[in-house]
């Protein structure tokens, strides 16, 4: 990978990590405030239930590009240890290509869901927040994960 692209990727994943950390901290904080509010102040946080749902989706899809880029997904991978040379490279290409395909499915499906939710003007039950943006967010971030896998795929194609 050329130096510039590599450092851009590094900055991107670092930024995503910061967002993920913030979101998870907010989930923890919101739960604590909610419980405290309910038992001590007798005033629970209204709509915390729905905020938590949104935060969960944001957390998952923010971290998805990071774990996809760093290849931290759960694998069985018995073949890796046995393959050598050209076969090993072919296996790597195969794995990256299928990972890209799966992420492409997720990204396009999330976009599609976003369209459906926007057209039907779906909103949450209590806060009346539109749900479509969450689906679009998921689509874009899955797209980022896809792009990062494609960068890797390109790099390993060039090595062939």
């Amino acid at each position: 990978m050329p130096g510039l692209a590599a450092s851009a990727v590094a900055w991107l994943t670092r930024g995503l990590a910061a967002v993920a950390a913030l979101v998870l901290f907010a989930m923890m904080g919101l739960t604590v405030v909610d419980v405290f509010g309910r038992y001590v102040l007798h005033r629970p946080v209204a709509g915390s239930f729905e905020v938590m749902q949104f935060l969960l989706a944001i957390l998952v899809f923010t971290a998805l590009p990071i774990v996809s880029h760093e290849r931290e997904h759960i694998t069985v991978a018995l073949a890796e240890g046995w393959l050598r040379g050209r076969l090993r490279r072919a296996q790597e290409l195969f794995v990256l290509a299928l990972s890209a395909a799966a992420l492409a499915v997720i990204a396009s499906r999330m976009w599609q869901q976003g369209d459906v939710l926007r057209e039907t003007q779906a909103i949450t039950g209590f806060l009346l927040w539109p749900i479509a943006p969450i689906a679009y967010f998921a689509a874009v971030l899955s797209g980022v994960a896809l792009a990062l896998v494609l960068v890797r795929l390109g790099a390993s194609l060039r090595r062939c």
Partner: protein
Amino acid sequence: MEASLIGFAVLLALCFAGVPLGFALLLVGLAGFAFERGLGAALAMSGQQILDFSTNYGLTVLPLFVLMGSFIHRAELSDELYEATNAWLGHHRGGLAMATVGACAGFAAVSGSSLATAATMSKVAMPPMRRFGYADSLAAGSIAAGGTLGILIPPSVPMVIYGILTETDIGKLFIAGILPGLLMVLLFFAAIAAATRIRPRLGPPGERLSPRARWRATARVWGVLALFVLVIGGIYLGVFTPTEAAGIGAFGAFLFAAMRRKLGFAACVEALVDAGRTTAIIFTVGFGALVFSNFVTLAGLTAAMVELIRSLEVSPTGVVLAMCVLYVILGCVFDSLAMLLLTVPIFFPIVAPLGVDPVWFGIIVIVVVEIGLITPPIGMNVFMVRSVLQDVDTWTIFNGVWPFLAATLAALALLFAFPGIATWLPEQMVKF
């Protein structure tokens, strides 16, 4: 039926080729569903399932419990835990290994991960055992096996996943894990006692401490006890929902680590990011498992299996027993979370109509997953201990594990013979 068998074959082939499990499940599930109902339906189904899964409130419990473990891991409390258990047990034959198991149980009470438990104990328990001349096999084996308590003693991330997949009350599952966890600790003690009785040189006794020193060491682990009582007690008494307990537990662990000055800003961010990554990893497999299990159900595998079992007139217990055997085999290849996400959506619909108690089945599944963690060729806990203790051979650890394996099998047998070990305590929970 045939389609789902072909699906399984392709899935296994992709997994062995190194395709991440979540992606392989998603692609095979999608293709299979498309084969049965057309591509349009398959795409619509998977899109909706994935989005629903990611915005499911019940799932917020997962990142929060992972975060609790992440903070606890950084609090470095394993030293104190080990000193406390060692003060009480160390003077017995094999006592330091028993202390290791006890400390693992203590750590497990505030952490939901077996790997984290094994990793943190490797650093702490190994040096004293070496100093007293313990055989590497027994020493490392007790850490790897003790680590498995991490997922049986609540909180437990695999139990959370099981609860989500089967819509079983996570609080009940946690409470159900307590007695089997204690039973397992006792059986591990017995295994160590038996092994050192046969070969005393494996683990000589350590020094005996005065009662005062014992209590002083015990007093230093008050934080662990407080956190456990807060989180699990809160669930037991119905004060918190599991999600709330997870949030409170994570916050408690955060304060605990911060008070011990182990958690600077950088370490805090690192703990958060780690938990976020783990969440994304689990969710990715979850996406795939959802789509795949939809395909398998649609293809009629579940119905065919239920029908087959009915026609064979096997007792429900016999079915669960057969599944346990299958789990042990799968455990040779799959890691624990992957195995749960893959099998539970398929197995549970088979056993549920047979009248098998979902809480009891959950505990059985956790125990067989534990077996997979310490058996070759892929015993993740053994690998974890090995990665911390660079100078111990993997097979030495597997050699040391077998008394504990026997103990785990004994626990499994007892759970089959007396299901009440798992189901009695949750039945006593306060109802609102």
